[in-house]
């Protein structure tokens, strides 16, 4: 991924070689994502979420959504799903570097920062790569 890409929004993931999604723990101990804004941001502790999880469900977006969708001008169908970060939260995300046919419930997934369009980056998950020990 080109380093010149700008994150689609600030504070979604941590910087550095092994980025992690940034969530928050509220006063009751419940984990939320993304980090709340406004009044809801009071009394929360920002935490880094697990880089790996399991596939909870998935589908493929075959048609171009109406605005506010703001993807590449030439629409490319994309995979989307929910990833269960164990003991934390189940997060909706684009899924990359795989095909619909290869996806099954419960498969191991890992976070990657991926190009959303020519100028912006977005968090995504891909099947966990073999022989790729992930730093938690």
């Amino acid at each position: 991924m080109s380093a010149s890409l700008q994150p689609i929004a600030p504070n979604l993931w941590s910087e550095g070689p092994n980025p992690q999604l940034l969530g928050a723990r509220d006063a009751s101990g419940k984990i939320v994502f993304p980090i709340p804004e406004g009044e809801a941001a009071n009394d929360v502790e920002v935490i880094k979420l697990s880089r790996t999880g399991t596939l909870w469900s998935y589908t493929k977006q075959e048609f171009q959504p109406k605005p506010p969708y703001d993807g590449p001008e030439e629409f490319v169908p994309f995979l989307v799903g929910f990833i269960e970060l164990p003991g934390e939260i189940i997060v909706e995300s684009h899924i990359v570097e795989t095909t619909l046919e290869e996806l099954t419930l419960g498969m191991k997934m890992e976070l990657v920062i991926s190009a959303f369009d020519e100028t912006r980056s977005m968090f995504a998950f891909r099947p966990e790569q073999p022989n790729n020990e992930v730093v938690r």
Partner: protein
Amino acid sequence: MSDVYIIGAGIHQFGRTEERTGRDQGVFAVREALKDAGLEWSDVQFASGGSHAAGKADIMLNDLGLTSIPFINVFNGCATGGSALATAKSAIAAGECDIALAVGFDKHPRGAFAADPKAYGLPDWYGQTGMMMTTQFFALKMQRYMQLHDISRETLGKVAAKSFRNGEKAEHAWRRTPIDLDTIMNSQMINDPLTKFMFCAPAEGGVALILASEKKVRELGADAVKISSVTIRSRPPGSFEVYAPTIDVVNGGKPTILASKAAYEQAGIGPEDIDLAQLQDTEAGAEIMHMAENGICADGEQEKWIAEGRTELDGSLPINTDGGCIACGEPIGATGLRQVYENVTQLRGRAGPRQIKNKPKTAYSHVYGAPGLSGITILEV
């Protein structure tokens, strides 16, 4: 609380009516409902209604007559119709009036619904990245459900085929041509596992119901259907809802399950007592999942139920007898009352070619929508 009855039901053709605004379709439905009840607009003492995208309902007074009655505007997403019905019913039950109107109408542009993230308290990036999509939500929910409960893709197709067959027999339906299973299965993929013909489409339509007190029903000698329950419930913690970027790891309840339990309790009956049901079928998978959420069968039993034709017009529990949203389309503000209209028509034995046999006594209806709310009604004769 005294019982409240529906004594008039009117509908405006669902689908596309280019020359008529959504509200005018609502006005048309009100006039049909009044005719059905044998009443004049000046007899109506209270009104409640709304739309999601076709404007305020009380503007209808300009067309219907400026009778100075209280008119409560409802803006409650898919539960707009149910909320209008609940409000009108409460006014009668509380003894404030004897005749009330509940009305819902809508008109949406073609193509999948698009929503503003801010209106739902969500960050802009969720919409920008194409994840704030109702079609995706239902596909994601069904993909998981199918794999956990062994529901086949063909069963999805069979549900849609039933909708088009029933729609052919309903004058108010939009899609009135049967579509065979192969065509449904092989139509354009929208969001795996759901194809184009398994989905409903945003549409237009209007429905109006005239409600009356028991005293008025006797006075008029009306062909009346009793409202045994109207319940609306919003999402509990840990549920999986449309327009949700995350889900709790601890699985919680569902708004439909809560609304359904409350509705059965209010009516003093159980799912085994229901003769027919209208369930939210944004797509074929929703009808399947909502069968279990409404207590009609256990998770996974739908595969057998549908293979045996139990939900067909001649089955043991007919579901979506007018073709549901799949055949009628989805005008958000009107759908909930369309389901009630269909149940009233069936309970009065006036459904013509789609009339279910053996004089149904109890009918159930269920809507579900963003950002996670459900509405149920149970009617009895």
